Protein backbone atom coordinates (compact mmCIF):
# COMPACT_ATOMS: atom_id res chain seq x y z
CA UNK A 1 0.00 0.00 0.00
CA UNK A 2 1.40 3.38 -0.91
CA UNK A 3 0.68 6.43 1.16
CA UNK A 4 1.89 9.99 1.04
CA UNK A 5 5.15 9.82 2.93
CA UNK A 6 6.77 6.74 1.45
CA UNK A 7 10.49 6.83 0.87
CA UNK A 8 11.68 5.23 -2.31
CA UNK A 9 15.14 4.49 -3.64
CA UNK A 10 15.19 4.26 -7.42
CA UNK A 11 18.26 2.62 -8.93
CA UNK A 12 20.51 4.36 -6.46
CA UNK A 13 24.26 3.96 -6.95
CA UNK A 14 27.12 5.37 -4.94
CA UNK A 15 30.51 5.38 -6.62
CA UNK A 16 33.55 6.86 -4.97
CA UNK A 17 36.17 8.78 -6.94
CA UNK A 18 38.61 5.90 -6.48
CA UNK A 19 36.23 3.63 -8.36
CA UNK A 20 34.86 1.72 -5.41
CA UNK A 21 31.12 1.10 -5.58
CA UNK A 22 29.53 1.32 -2.15
CA UNK A 23 25.92 0.98 -3.27
CA UNK A 24 25.12 -0.68 -6.57
CA UNK A 25 21.84 0.07 -8.32
CA UNK A 26 19.64 -0.36 -5.27
CA UNK A 27 15.88 0.09 -5.48
CA UNK A 28 13.61 -0.21 -2.51
CA UNK A 29 10.36 1.17 -1.16
CA UNK A 30 10.27 2.09 2.51
CA UNK A 31 6.68 2.28 3.63
CA UNK A 32 5.65 5.32 5.61
CA UNK A 33 5.40 4.77 9.33
CA UNK A 34 7.39 1.56 9.39
CA UNK A 35 10.42 0.64 11.39
CA UNK A 36 13.01 -0.58 8.91
CA UNK A 37 16.40 -2.04 9.77
CA UNK A 38 19.21 -1.95 7.25
CA UNK A 39 21.21 -4.97 8.24
CA UNK A 40 24.56 -6.17 7.00
CA UNK A 41 28.23 -6.66 7.77
CA UNK A 42 30.54 -3.67 7.84
CA UNK A 43 31.33 -2.34 4.39
CA UNK A 44 28.14 -3.72 2.84
CA UNK A 45 26.86 -0.28 1.85
CA UNK A 46 24.18 0.12 4.50
CA UNK A 47 25.75 3.24 6.00
CA UNK A 48 26.34 4.77 2.57
CA UNK A 49 22.69 4.14 1.73
CA UNK A 50 21.59 5.84 4.92
CA UNK A 51 23.92 8.77 4.37
CA UNK A 52 22.65 9.22 0.84
CA UNK A 53 19.08 9.32 2.12
CA UNK A 54 20.18 11.87 4.72
CA UNK A 55 21.98 13.96 2.14
CA UNK A 56 25.45 13.63 3.63
CA UNK A 57 26.66 11.71 0.58
CA UNK A 58 25.85 12.62 -2.98
CA UNK A 59 23.98 10.12 -5.10
CA UNK A 60 26.10 9.05 -8.09
CA UNK A 61 23.14 7.65 -10.01
CA UNK A 62 19.45 7.23 -9.40
CA UNK A 63 16.91 9.09 -7.35
CA UNK A 64 15.61 9.22 -3.81
CA UNK A 65 11.91 10.01 -3.58
CA UNK A 66 10.22 11.13 -0.40
CA UNK A 67 6.50 11.80 -0.65
CA UNK A 68 6.90 11.45 -4.42
CA UNK A 69 9.37 14.30 -4.55
CA UNK A 70 12.94 13.77 -5.69
CA UNK A 71 15.06 14.88 -2.74
CA UNK A 72 18.41 13.55 -3.94
CA UNK A 73 19.76 16.98 -4.85
CA UNK A 74 18.41 18.82 -1.80
CA UNK A 75 20.52 19.77 1.22
CA UNK A 76 19.97 17.53 4.29
CA UNK A 77 17.72 19.93 6.16
CA UNK A 78 15.35 20.41 3.22
CA UNK A 79 14.57 16.74 2.71
CA UNK A 80 12.21 15.99 5.53
CA UNK A 81 14.71 13.58 7.03
CA UNK A 82 16.74 13.87 10.20
CA UNK A 83 19.72 11.86 11.20
CA UNK A 84 20.87 10.57 14.53
CA UNK A 85 24.59 9.96 14.42
CA UNK A 86 26.44 6.95 15.68
CA UNK A 87 28.39 8.87 18.31
CA UNK A 88 25.35 11.17 18.76
CA UNK A 89 27.44 14.19 17.65
CA UNK A 90 26.06 16.43 20.38
CA UNK A 91 27.63 19.87 20.41
CA UNK A 92 29.94 19.76 23.43
CA UNK A 93 29.77 23.51 24.03
CA UNK A 94 25.99 23.72 24.17
CA UNK A 95 23.62 22.71 26.94
CA UNK A 96 21.14 19.91 26.39
CA UNK A 97 18.40 22.46 25.70
CA UNK A 98 20.50 24.42 23.22
CA UNK A 99 21.54 21.22 21.48
CA UNK A 100 17.92 20.27 20.96
CA UNK A 101 16.97 23.78 19.88
CA UNK A 102 19.93 24.07 17.50
CA UNK A 103 18.03 23.67 14.24
CA UNK A 104 15.40 26.19 15.32
CA UNK A 105 18.16 28.65 16.16
CA UNK A 106 19.57 28.16 12.65
CA UNK A 107 16.14 28.98 11.27
CA UNK A 108 16.11 32.20 13.26
CA UNK A 109 13.32 31.20 15.64
CA UNK A 110 13.37 33.44 18.71
CA UNK A 111 14.73 32.19 21.99
CA UNK A 112 11.54 31.73 23.99
CA UNK A 113 9.73 29.86 21.20
CA UNK A 114 12.59 27.51 20.52
CA UNK A 115 13.22 26.85 24.21
CA UNK A 116 9.57 25.97 24.63
CA UNK A 117 9.67 23.55 21.72
CA UNK A 118 12.97 22.06 22.93
CA UNK A 119 11.41 21.44 26.32
CA UNK A 120 8.49 19.62 24.70
CA UNK A 121 10.90 17.27 22.96
CA UNK A 122 13.01 16.81 26.07
CA UNK A 123 9.82 15.82 27.82
CA UNK A 124 9.10 13.31 25.07
CA UNK A 125 12.42 11.58 25.77
CA UNK A 126 12.14 12.21 29.51
CA UNK A 127 15.21 14.42 29.75
CA UNK A 128 13.66 17.72 30.86
CA UNK A 129 15.43 17.55 34.23
CA UNK A 130 18.83 17.69 32.52
CA UNK A 131 18.15 20.66 30.26
CA UNK A 132 21.03 22.76 31.62
CA UNK A 133 23.69 20.05 31.56
CA UNK A 134 26.46 19.79 29.02
CA UNK A 135 26.67 16.61 26.92
CA UNK A 136 29.77 15.29 28.69
CA UNK A 137 27.90 15.39 31.97
CA UNK A 138 25.44 12.82 30.66
CA UNK A 139 25.58 9.04 30.43
CA UNK A 140 25.55 7.30 27.05
CA UNK A 141 21.85 6.53 27.25
CA UNK A 142 21.02 10.10 28.20
CA UNK A 143 23.13 11.45 25.36
CA UNK A 144 21.22 9.24 22.99
CA UNK A 145 17.89 10.60 24.18
CA UNK A 146 19.13 14.14 23.67
CA UNK A 147 20.34 13.23 20.18
CA UNK A 148 16.90 11.78 19.46
CA UNK A 149 15.18 14.91 20.67
CA UNK A 150 17.49 17.04 18.57
CA UNK A 151 16.76 15.01 15.46
CA UNK A 152 13.01 15.03 16.08
CA UNK A 153 12.68 18.76 16.61
CA UNK A 154 12.75 19.27 12.85
CA UNK A 155 9.51 17.23 12.55
CA UNK A 156 11.04 14.77 10.08
CA UNK A 157 8.97 12.29 8.09
CA UNK A 158 11.88 9.90 8.21
CA UNK A 159 14.31 9.47 11.07
CA UNK A 160 17.64 7.95 10.10
CA UNK A 161 19.59 6.17 12.82
CA UNK A 162 23.18 5.20 12.18
CA UNK A 163 24.03 2.30 14.49
CA UNK A 164 22.34 4.13 17.35
CA UNK A 165 22.86 1.45 19.97
CA UNK A 166 26.43 0.42 19.26
CA UNK A 167 27.96 2.89 21.72
CA UNK A 168 25.93 1.52 24.64
CA UNK A 169 26.64 -1.36 26.95
CA UNK A 170 24.55 -4.52 26.32
CA UNK A 171 22.12 -3.92 29.16
CA UNK A 172 21.37 -0.35 28.12
CA UNK A 173 21.19 -1.41 24.49
CA UNK A 174 18.22 -3.63 25.17
CA UNK A 175 16.48 -0.93 27.20
CA UNK A 176 17.07 1.77 24.61
CA UNK A 177 15.82 -0.39 21.77
CA UNK A 178 12.53 -0.82 23.58
CA UNK A 179 12.34 2.93 23.88
CA UNK A 180 13.19 3.47 20.23
CA UNK A 181 10.41 1.14 19.19
CA UNK A 182 7.93 2.77 21.56
CA UNK A 183 8.85 6.22 20.29
CA UNK A 184 8.44 5.15 16.70
CA UNK A 185 4.98 3.77 17.43
CA UNK A 186 3.96 6.98 19.18
CA UNK A 187 5.27 9.29 16.47
CA UNK A 188 4.13 7.16 13.56
CA UNK A 189 7.01 8.27 11.35
CA UNK A 190 9.42 6.08 9.41
CA UNK A 191 12.54 4.97 11.26
CA UNK A 192 15.42 3.64 9.20
CA UNK A 193 17.91 2.05 11.51
CA UNK A 194 21.32 0.82 10.37
CA UNK A 195 22.74 -2.03 12.37
CA UNK A 196 25.03 -5.02 12.06
CA UNK A 197 23.30 -6.89 14.87
CA UNK A 198 20.66 -9.32 13.62
CA UNK A 199 19.11 -9.65 17.10
CA UNK A 200 18.63 -5.89 17.15
CA UNK A 201 17.05 -5.97 13.72
CA UNK A 202 14.73 -8.85 14.60
CA UNK A 203 13.66 -7.18 17.82
CA UNK A 204 12.89 -3.82 16.27
CA UNK A 205 12.09 -4.05 12.62
CA UNK A 206 8.77 -4.24 10.83
CA UNK A 207 10.88 -4.77 7.79
CA UNK A 208 14.46 -5.99 7.53
CA UNK A 209 16.61 -5.10 4.54
CA UNK A 210 19.70 -7.30 4.44
CA UNK A 211 22.55 -5.82 2.44
CA UNK A 212 25.78 -7.37 1.26
CA UNK A 213 28.37 -6.31 -1.30
CA UNK A 214 26.58 -3.06 -2.15
CA UNK A 215 23.24 -4.70 -3.01
CA UNK A 216 20.10 -5.75 -1.17
CA UNK A 217 20.22 -9.50 -0.56
CA UNK A 218 16.75 -9.80 0.80
CA UNK A 219 14.07 -7.51 2.14
CA UNK A 220 10.88 -8.34 3.93
CA UNK A 221 9.10 -8.60 7.26
CA UNK A 222 11.44 -9.71 10.04
CA UNK A 223 9.81 -13.11 10.38
CA UNK A 224 9.96 -13.78 6.64
CA UNK A 225 13.64 -13.02 6.47
CA UNK A 226 14.31 -15.21 9.47
CA UNK A 227 12.10 -18.13 8.42
CA UNK A 228 12.85 -18.08 4.72
CA UNK A 229 16.33 -16.74 4.02
CA UNK A 230 16.77 -16.43 0.31
CA UNK A 231 20.51 -16.98 0.10
CA UNK A 232 23.28 -18.70 1.96
CA UNK A 233 24.60 -15.30 3.00
CA UNK A 234 21.31 -14.29 4.59
CA UNK A 235 20.92 -17.65 6.30
CA UNK A 236 24.40 -17.43 7.78
CA UNK A 237 24.21 -13.74 8.64
CA UNK A 238 20.86 -14.00 10.40
CA UNK A 239 22.35 -16.79 12.47
CA UNK A 240 20.55 -19.79 13.91
CA UNK A 241 20.68 -21.54 10.57
CA UNK A 242 22.86 -24.33 9.23
CA UNK A 243 23.60 -24.40 5.55
CA UNK A 244 24.02 -27.88 4.08
CA UNK A 245 24.78 -29.12 0.61
CA UNK A 246 22.09 -31.24 -0.96
CA UNK A 247 21.99 -32.84 -4.36
CA UNK A 248 19.81 -30.07 -5.79
CA UNK A 249 21.77 -27.18 -4.26
CA UNK A 250 22.09 -25.65 -0.83
CA UNK A 251 19.46 -25.73 1.87
CA UNK A 252 19.10 -24.15 5.28
CA UNK A 253 18.00 -25.96 8.38
CA UNK A 254 17.36 -24.09 11.58
CA UNK A 255 19.66 -24.95 14.44
CA UNK A 256 16.69 -25.57 16.71
CA UNK A 257 15.27 -28.07 14.20
CA UNK A 258 18.33 -30.30 14.42
CA UNK A 259 17.94 -33.21 16.85
CA UNK A 260 20.17 -35.95 18.12
CA UNK A 261 18.77 -39.34 17.19
CA UNK A 262 19.65 -42.97 17.16
CA UNK A 263 20.14 -42.88 13.45
CA UNK A 264 20.67 -40.23 10.79
CA UNK A 265 23.72 -38.28 9.64
CA UNK A 266 26.76 -39.09 11.69
CA UNK A 267 28.74 -36.19 13.11
CA UNK A 268 31.35 -35.46 15.74
CA UNK A 269 30.71 -33.12 18.66
CA UNK A 270 33.20 -30.26 18.65
CA UNK A 271 31.94 -28.12 21.47
CA UNK A 272 29.12 -28.00 23.98
CA UNK A 273 27.85 -24.69 25.22
CA UNK A 274 25.21 -24.31 27.90
CA UNK A 275 22.97 -21.36 27.05
CA UNK A 276 20.23 -21.65 29.63
CA UNK A 277 17.10 -22.64 27.81
CA UNK A 278 19.14 -24.41 25.18
CA UNK A 279 22.39 -26.24 24.86
CA UNK A 280 24.33 -25.36 21.74
CA UNK A 281 26.04 -28.38 20.27
CA UNK A 282 28.65 -27.56 17.66
CA UNK A 283 29.30 -30.56 15.47
CA UNK A 284 31.25 -31.46 12.39
CA UNK A 285 29.31 -33.37 9.77
CA UNK A 286 31.70 -34.31 6.99
CA UNK A 287 33.00 -30.96 5.77
CA UNK A 288 30.25 -28.79 7.16
CA UNK A 289 29.78 -27.36 10.62
CA UNK A 290 26.35 -28.02 12.01
CA UNK A 291 24.98 -26.28 15.05
CA UNK A 292 22.22 -27.96 16.99
CA UNK A 293 20.21 -26.12 19.62
CA UNK A 294 18.85 -28.81 21.91
CA UNK A 295 16.32 -27.93 24.61
CA UNK A 296 18.12 -28.08 27.91
CA UNK A 297 16.02 -30.83 29.48
CA UNK A 298 16.33 -33.03 26.42
CA UNK A 299 20.10 -32.62 26.30
CA UNK A 300 20.69 -33.51 29.92
CA UNK A 301 18.68 -36.70 29.60
CA UNK A 302 21.44 -37.89 27.34
CA UNK A 303 24.44 -35.53 27.63
CA UNK A 304 27.21 -35.52 25.03
CA UNK A 305 30.84 -34.50 25.32
CA UNK A 306 33.25 -33.05 22.76
CA UNK A 307 34.78 -35.81 20.66
CA UNK A 308 31.76 -38.11 20.86
CA UNK A 309 30.05 -39.31 17.71
CA UNK A 310 26.35 -38.56 17.37
CA UNK A 311 23.60 -38.97 14.80
CA UNK A 312 21.86 -35.80 13.64
CA UNK A 313 18.31 -35.88 12.34
CA UNK A 314 15.77 -33.35 11.19
CA UNK A 315 12.37 -33.22 9.73
CA UNK A 316 12.71 -33.04 5.96
CA UNK A 317 9.84 -30.59 5.87
CA UNK A 318 11.90 -28.06 7.77
CA UNK A 319 14.65 -27.96 5.19
CA UNK A 320 14.51 -24.66 3.39
CA UNK A 321 15.91 -24.53 -0.14
CA UNK A 322 18.20 -21.55 -0.79
CA UNK A 323 18.13 -19.70 -4.08
CA UNK A 324 21.76 -18.70 -3.95
Amino acid at each position, binding site marked *: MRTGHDLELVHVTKRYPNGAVAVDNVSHLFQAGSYVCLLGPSGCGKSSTLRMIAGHETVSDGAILLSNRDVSAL*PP*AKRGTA*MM*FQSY*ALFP*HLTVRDNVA*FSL*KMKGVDRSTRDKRAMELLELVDMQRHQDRLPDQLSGGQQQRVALA*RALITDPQVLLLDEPLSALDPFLRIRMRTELKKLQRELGITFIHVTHGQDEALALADEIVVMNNAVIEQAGPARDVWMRPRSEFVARFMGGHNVIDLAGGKAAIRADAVRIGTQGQSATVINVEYQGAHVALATKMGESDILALIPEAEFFENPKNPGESVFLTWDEGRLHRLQA
Partner: protein
Amino acid sequence: MKAMSDTTKGWLLASPLTLILVVFLIAPIVMIAVVSFWTATEWSIVPAFSLENYQFLFGSDVTYRVFFNTFKYAAITWAITLVIGFTVAWYLAFHIRSLPVQIALFLLCTIPFWTSNIIRMISWIPFLGRNGLANNMLISMGVVDEPVEWLLYSDFSVILAFVHLYTLFMVVPIFNTMMRIDRSLLEAARDAGASGFQILTNVVLPLTKPGIMIGSIFVITLVMGDFITVRFMSGSQSANVGRLISNDIALLQYPSAAATAVVLLVTVLITIGILLRLVDIRKEL
Protein backbone atom coordinates in the same frame (compact mmCIF):
# COMPACT_ATOMS: atom_id res chain seq x y z
CA MET B 1 70.06 1.78 52.45
CA LYS B 2 66.88 2.85 54.12
CA ALA B 3 63.96 3.22 51.78
CA MET B 4 63.07 6.82 51.10
CA SER B 5 59.60 8.02 51.88
CA ASP B 6 57.39 8.89 48.92
CA THR B 7 57.47 12.54 49.90
CA THR B 8 61.25 12.68 49.80
CA LYS B 9 61.29 10.89 46.47
CA GLY B 10 58.73 13.31 45.08
CA TRP B 11 60.77 16.32 46.15
CA LEU B 12 63.93 14.82 44.71
CA LEU B 13 62.27 14.09 41.40
CA ALA B 14 60.88 17.61 41.15
CA SER B 15 64.12 19.29 42.22
CA PRO B 16 66.05 19.37 38.90
CA LEU B 17 63.27 21.27 37.16
CA THR B 18 62.75 23.47 40.19
CA LEU B 19 66.45 24.24 40.23
CA ILE B 20 66.49 25.16 36.56
CA LEU B 21 63.43 27.37 36.90
CA VAL B 22 64.84 29.07 39.99
CA VAL B 23 68.22 29.75 38.40
CA PHE B 24 67.05 30.74 34.94
CA LEU B 25 63.61 32.24 35.55
CA ILE B 26 62.91 33.25 39.12
CA ALA B 27 66.34 34.58 40.02
CA PRO B 28 66.70 36.87 36.98
CA ILE B 29 63.22 38.28 37.47
CA VAL B 30 63.87 38.90 41.15
CA MET B 31 67.17 40.51 40.18
CA ILE B 32 65.45 42.79 37.69
CA ALA B 33 62.83 43.70 40.24
CA VAL B 34 65.54 44.49 42.81
CA VAL B 35 67.66 46.52 40.41
CA SER B 36 64.60 48.51 39.33
CA PHE B 37 64.63 50.13 42.76
CA TRP B 38 68.27 51.16 42.55
CA THR B 39 69.48 54.48 41.18
CA ALA B 40 72.13 55.29 38.61
CA THR B 41 74.26 58.24 37.72
CA GLU B 42 76.17 58.68 34.47
CA TRP B 43 79.03 56.59 35.72
CA SER B 44 77.76 54.35 38.52
CA ILE B 45 74.88 52.27 39.78
CA VAL B 46 73.88 52.86 43.37
CA PRO B 47 72.26 49.96 45.19
CA ALA B 48 69.93 51.97 47.35
CA PHE B 49 66.17 51.64 47.63
CA SER B 50 64.52 54.40 45.67
CA LEU B 51 61.31 54.90 43.74
CA GLU B 52 63.00 57.38 41.44
CA ASN B 53 62.85 55.13 38.33
CA TYR B 54 59.15 54.47 38.69
CA GLN B 55 58.40 58.09 39.47
CA PHE B 56 60.21 59.11 36.33
CA LEU B 57 58.52 56.39 34.29
CA PHE B 58 54.97 57.19 35.37
CA GLY B 59 55.64 60.92 35.33
CA SER B 60 56.77 60.94 31.72
CA ASP B 61 54.47 61.52 28.82
CA VAL B 62 56.74 59.39 26.61
CA THR B 63 56.02 56.26 28.65
CA TYR B 64 52.30 56.45 27.99
CA ARG B 65 52.79 57.13 24.31
CA VAL B 66 55.20 54.24 23.95
CA PHE B 67 52.95 51.87 25.89
CA PHE B 68 50.05 52.94 23.74
CA ASN B 69 52.13 52.28 20.64
CA THR B 70 53.06 48.83 21.97
CA PHE B 71 49.41 47.98 22.56
CA LYS B 72 48.52 49.30 19.14
CA TYR B 73 51.07 47.03 17.45
CA ALA B 74 49.94 44.11 19.56
CA ALA B 75 46.25 44.68 18.84
CA ILE B 76 46.59 45.18 15.09
CA THR B 77 49.02 42.28 14.68
CA TRP B 78 46.74 40.11 16.79
CA ALA B 79 43.70 40.92 14.67
CA ILE B 80 45.48 40.27 11.37
CA THR B 81 47.27 37.09 12.47
CA LEU B 82 43.99 35.82 13.90
CA VAL B 83 42.14 36.25 10.63
CA ILE B 84 44.95 34.78 8.53
CA GLY B 85 45.75 32.05 11.04
CA PHE B 86 42.14 30.99 11.40
CA THR B 87 41.65 30.90 7.65
CA VAL B 88 44.79 28.87 7.03
CA ALA B 89 43.98 26.46 9.85
CA TRP B 90 40.39 26.13 8.60
CA TYR B 91 41.61 25.32 5.13
CA LEU B 92 44.15 22.79 6.37
CA ALA B 93 41.80 21.13 8.82
CA PHE B 94 38.53 21.02 6.91
CA HIS B 95 39.25 21.33 3.21
CA ILE B 96 42.29 19.09 2.85
CA ARG B 97 40.93 15.61 3.24
CA SER B 98 44.07 13.50 3.16
CA LEU B 99 46.39 13.41 6.12
CA PRO B 100 49.66 13.26 4.10
CA VAL B 101 48.71 16.40 2.17
CA GLN B 102 47.72 18.04 5.42
CA ILE B 103 51.10 17.26 6.96
CA ALA B 104 52.94 18.37 3.80
CA LEU B 105 51.14 21.72 3.69
CA PHE B 106 51.62 22.17 7.41
CA LEU B 107 55.38 21.64 7.02
CA LEU B 108 55.32 24.10 4.14
CA CYS B 109 54.03 26.70 6.59
CA THR B 110 57.07 26.16 8.79
CA ILE B 111 59.66 26.62 6.02
CA PRO B 112 60.15 30.33 6.74
CA PHE B 113 61.26 29.29 10.21
CA TRP B 114 64.33 27.64 8.76
CA THR B 115 65.94 31.08 8.58
CA SER B 116 66.40 33.49 11.43
CA ASN B 117 63.85 36.09 12.42
CA ILE B 118 66.17 38.94 11.59
CA ILE B 119 66.92 37.72 8.08
CA ARG B 120 63.24 37.26 7.33
CA MET B 121 62.60 40.72 8.60
CA ILE B 122 65.46 42.41 6.77
CA SER B 123 64.52 40.74 3.50
CA TRP B 124 61.47 43.01 3.44
CA ILE B 125 63.67 46.09 3.19
CA PRO B 126 64.80 45.72 -0.46
CA PHE B 127 61.27 44.70 -1.33
CA LEU B 128 59.49 47.63 0.27
CA GLY B 129 62.12 50.37 -0.14
CA ARG B 130 61.78 53.56 -2.13
CA ASN B 131 63.29 51.89 -5.20
CA GLY B 132 62.30 48.43 -4.13
CA LEU B 133 60.44 45.71 -5.98
CA ALA B 134 57.03 46.72 -4.71
CA ASN B 135 57.38 50.34 -5.77
CA ASN B 136 58.90 49.44 -9.14
CA MET B 137 56.03 47.12 -9.81
CA LEU B 138 53.38 49.63 -8.78
CA ILE B 139 54.96 52.28 -10.98
CA SER B 140 55.33 50.02 -14.01
CA MET B 141 51.75 48.89 -13.60
CA GLY B 142 50.77 52.52 -13.56
CA VAL B 143 49.05 52.32 -10.20
CA VAL B 144 51.14 55.16 -8.80
CA ASP B 145 53.28 57.86 -10.44
CA GLU B 146 55.95 58.17 -7.81
CA PRO B 147 57.25 55.71 -5.19
CA VAL B 148 54.94 55.11 -2.25
CA GLU B 149 56.72 56.37 0.86
CA TRP B 150 54.81 54.59 3.57
CA LEU B 151 55.72 51.08 2.46
CA LEU B 152 58.94 51.02 4.45
CA TYR B 153 59.94 52.63 7.74
CA SER B 154 56.37 53.05 8.85
CA ASP B 155 53.80 51.40 11.10
CA PHE B 156 52.73 49.52 7.99
CA SER B 157 56.09 47.82 7.55
CA VAL B 158 56.38 47.08 11.28
CA ILE B 159 53.02 45.36 11.36
CA LEU B 160 53.71 43.59 8.08
CA ALA B 161 56.89 42.14 9.54
CA PHE B 162 55.11 41.14 12.76
CA VAL B 163 52.37 39.40 10.82
CA HIS B 164 54.93 37.64 8.67
CA LEU B 165 56.92 36.51 11.70
CA TYR B 166 54.13 35.42 13.99
CA THR B 167 51.17 34.16 11.95
CA LEU B 168 52.37 30.58 12.31
CA PHE B 169 52.08 30.89 16.08
CA MET B 170 48.38 31.46 15.49
CA VAL B 171 48.00 28.73 12.85
CA VAL B 172 49.48 25.91 14.91
CA PRO B 173 47.27 26.01 18.02
CA ILE B 174 44.12 26.76 16.03
CA PHE B 175 44.85 23.93 13.59
CA ASN B 176 45.49 21.66 16.54
CA THR B 177 42.11 22.41 18.14
CA MET B 178 40.29 22.18 14.84
CA MET B 179 41.71 18.72 14.19
CA ARG B 180 40.09 17.59 17.42
CA ILE B 181 36.63 18.67 16.36
CA ASP B 182 34.58 15.59 15.58
CA ARG B 183 33.66 15.79 11.90
CA SER B 184 30.21 14.39 12.61
CA LEU B 185 29.46 17.62 14.51
CA LEU B 186 29.70 19.50 11.24
CA GLU B 187 27.39 16.99 9.61
CA ALA B 188 24.99 17.22 12.50
CA ALA B 189 24.96 20.99 12.09
CA ARG B 190 24.30 20.65 8.37
CA ASP B 191 21.57 18.14 9.14
CA ALA B 192 19.99 20.74 11.38
CA GLY B 193 19.97 23.20 8.51
CA ALA B 194 22.99 25.33 9.39
CA SER B 195 24.59 27.21 6.51
CA GLY B 196 28.36 27.25 6.08
CA PHE B 197 28.58 30.56 7.88
CA GLN B 198 26.32 29.38 10.68
CA ILE B 199 28.47 26.28 11.13
CA LEU B 200 31.47 28.58 11.43
CA THR B 201 29.93 30.85 14.03
CA ASN B 202 27.87 28.31 15.97
CA VAL B 203 30.09 25.25 15.97
CA VAL B 204 33.66 25.75 14.77
CA LEU B 205 34.39 29.11 16.36
CA PRO B 206 33.17 28.21 19.85
CA LEU B 207 35.02 24.90 19.74
CA THR B 208 38.23 26.54 18.49
CA LYS B 209 38.29 29.20 21.21
CA PRO B 210 40.99 27.54 23.33
CA GLY B 211 43.31 27.30 20.30
CA ILE B 212 42.60 30.92 19.41
CA MET B 213 43.38 31.91 22.96
CA ILE B 214 46.72 30.07 23.03
CA GLY B 215 47.68 31.58 19.68
CA SER B 216 46.66 35.02 20.92
CA ILE B 217 48.84 34.68 24.00
CA PHE B 218 51.80 33.72 21.81
CA VAL B 219 51.34 36.61 19.42
CA ILE B 220 50.56 39.24 22.02
CA THR B 221 53.48 38.39 24.28
CA LEU B 222 55.88 38.16 21.33
CA VAL B 223 54.81 41.50 19.89
CA MET B 224 54.77 43.27 23.24
CA GLY B 225 58.24 42.01 24.12
CA ASP B 226 59.76 42.74 20.74
CA PHE B 227 62.21 45.56 20.07
CA ILE B 228 64.31 44.57 17.04
CA THR B 229 61.45 44.39 14.53
CA VAL B 230 60.19 47.80 15.50
CA ARG B 231 63.68 49.23 15.25
CA PHE B 232 64.51 47.79 11.82
CA MET B 233 61.16 48.10 10.17
CA SER B 234 60.35 51.58 11.41
CA GLY B 235 63.84 52.83 10.62
CA SER B 236 64.08 53.95 14.25
CA GLN B 237 61.10 56.22 13.72
CA SER B 238 58.67 54.40 16.02
CA ALA B 239 59.12 53.16 19.51
CA ASN B 240 57.68 50.47 21.67
CA VAL B 241 58.46 49.46 25.22
CA GLY B 242 61.17 47.04 24.11
CA ARG B 243 63.05 49.86 22.43
CA LEU B 244 62.70 52.01 25.52
CA ILE B 245 64.42 49.28 27.50
CA SER B 246 67.09 48.65 24.89
CA ASN B 247 67.89 52.37 24.72
CA ASP B 248 68.30 52.51 28.49
CA ILE B 249 70.62 49.52 28.36
CA ALA B 250 72.65 51.12 25.58
CA LEU B 251 73.11 54.11 27.90
CA LEU B 252 74.00 51.78 30.78
CA GLN B 253 70.91 52.95 32.68
CA TYR B 254 70.21 49.49 34.03
CA PRO B 255 67.93 50.48 36.94
CA SER B 256 65.72 52.50 34.65
CA ALA B 257 65.65 49.65 32.10
CA ALA B 258 64.77 47.23 34.86
CA ALA B 259 61.90 49.42 36.05
CA THR B 260 60.49 49.60 32.53
CA ALA B 261 60.88 45.85 32.18
CA VAL B 262 58.97 45.26 35.41
CA VAL B 263 56.14 47.49 34.27
CA LEU B 264 56.04 45.72 30.90
CA LEU B 265 56.06 42.32 32.57
CA VAL B 266 53.18 43.28 34.83
CA THR B 267 51.25 44.73 31.89
CA VAL B 268 51.67 41.58 29.83
CA LEU B 269 50.71 39.39 32.78
CA ILE B 270 47.56 41.43 33.33
CA THR B 271 46.69 41.15 29.63
CA ILE B 272 47.12 37.37 29.69
CA GLY B 273 45.19 37.21 32.95
CA ILE B 274 42.27 38.95 31.26
CA LEU B 275 42.47 36.62 28.26
CA LEU B 276 42.48 33.54 30.46
CA ARG B 277 39.43 34.86 32.23
CA LEU B 278 37.59 34.81 28.93
CA VAL B 279 38.40 31.24 27.87
CA ASP B 280 39.34 28.15 29.79
CA ILE B 281 42.36 26.68 28.02
CA ARG B 282 43.21 24.08 30.64
CA LYS B 283 41.57 21.18 28.86
CA GLU B 284 43.66 22.02 25.81
CA LEU B 285 47.02 21.62 27.56
